């Protein structure tokens, strides 16, 4: 559940949902579920919210994401590019299981900083 400073968005069955935690100019997005092509709309919502909120750093917490496919990696690329353009520092955090394997095999941590 979202903490006192967070709020929950975009809940639906079998897909992805996330919670936003803001602390000053740092935004942590706690992702849950699966990051696949279906998460495209969510990601675009996330990106659209960055600049409005005056965010300087954004961390994607992946610890509760149990599956990500190559389309999900594509969304990370899109988010990373959007962050660069907006002057936002974008990072990944705590991938687990299949998601961690995928990031390591694809060496995504070499283009998006990732705290394992």
């Amino acid at each position: 559940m979202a903490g006192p400073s967070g709020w929950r968005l975009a809940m639906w069955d079998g897909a992805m949902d996330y919670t936003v935690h803001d602390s000053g100019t740092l935004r942590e997005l706690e992702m849950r579920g699966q990051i696949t092509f279906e998460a495209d709309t969510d990601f675009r919502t996330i990106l659209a919210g960055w600049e409005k909120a005056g965010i300087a750093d954004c961390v994607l917490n992946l610890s509760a994401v149990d599956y990500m496919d190559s389309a999900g990696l594509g969304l990370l690329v899109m988010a990373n590019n959007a962050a660069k353009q907006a002057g936002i520092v974008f990072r990944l955090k705590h991938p687990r299981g299949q998601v961690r394997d995928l990031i390591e095999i694809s060496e995504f941590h070499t283009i998006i900083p990732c705290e394992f």
Partner: protein
Amino acid sequence: MSGGPPVVIGHPRPSATGPLRDVLGRLGVRRLTVVDGDGLAQAVADATAGSPQLLLLHAGLPGFGPDLLAGLREMAQLRDVPILVLGRFASGFHRAELMRAGATDLLARPLTLAELSARLSVYLERRRLDRSLQEVIRSLHSYHHGAMQRMALARQMQLGLLPDAAACRSLEGRYGIAMDSHFESSSELGGDLWGARPLDDRRFALFLCDFTGHGVAAALNTFRLHALLARTGLPADDPAETLRTLNGLLVGLLPEAQFAAMIYAVVDVSADRLVYATAGAPKPLVRHRDGRLEVGPSCGLPLGLAGEARYRNHCLDFPPGSTLLLFSDALYEARGWDGGMFGYGGVTDLVQGLGDDELERPLGCMLDRYFATVPRLLADDLTVLWISRSVRPRSGPD
């Protein structure tokens, strides 16, 4: 409103149909045919090339009755046309008989012109909507048929990118190997591509590539890659350099968030080894003669993401009697009937579980078992390559 097909009026005294014609005219009917009953069926056939919009019959027509209605309904062009009967109907039985024989509705007199107009407009509008719907359905059928033909042609073209049976037999004979492959797209077209080609008498190259997504967009990327691979000047015998070169060509060519996972391997049958590099591709699997499985490492940015990406060569023993298995991630990311992911462990279990008696068609046996636990409609494109080194001496030159 346009004229459209005509409305046919059957009336014993055509000269008395003025009010009817006025009502229909106000409802937008521009084409009217009035017949007096004699040879009504022939008049309908002559009056319209196709079907009329509506047939309005006066119950006082000579010979009018259930038999006449049934006869009209048997005409192909009147099968779906509203047939309305205007008149006085003596009994419920008579009305039921007319309806059974083919009348769409009975307009019982006395009837004001306003009521007549309201009743007719319902059937005219319904007929117009029905014809529009039929037209839309015909158009969709036609589009679908054309699209399927184009897709079938495109699929043939995509299958034409893969090594054909003759190319595979040639490699088998030259290098003392047995090759088997499975290529299954999740829709008509897919984003996977594999290939193999000789380098010299002791080495051949092998690759498997999986573009993000599936369907037409991913398939177009496979054609791009195929064209790039056909370029001379690729350092084909150095997997890491080959991937680096391909990556350099694909960066800027692929749209944002599209990329390719690829493994490129060089098999050296003299040195009994395999040198390969990966770009986000699944780990390769070698099944040794004693049944032991070896999982090769895999690391490297997918192709098309970053121009500065560098790749590393890895080496695996690949002696006679061993088997190399390469596959796209759909093999282990697919979900079983229980909803759980098949997993890489599921793949190793599957390969390890194959008995020696199944080695005649090992890939077929493996996939039979796989599809017993995974629903056939895959969410992603699946490619599996099975390369076994023969224990017999090679037929080709060394």
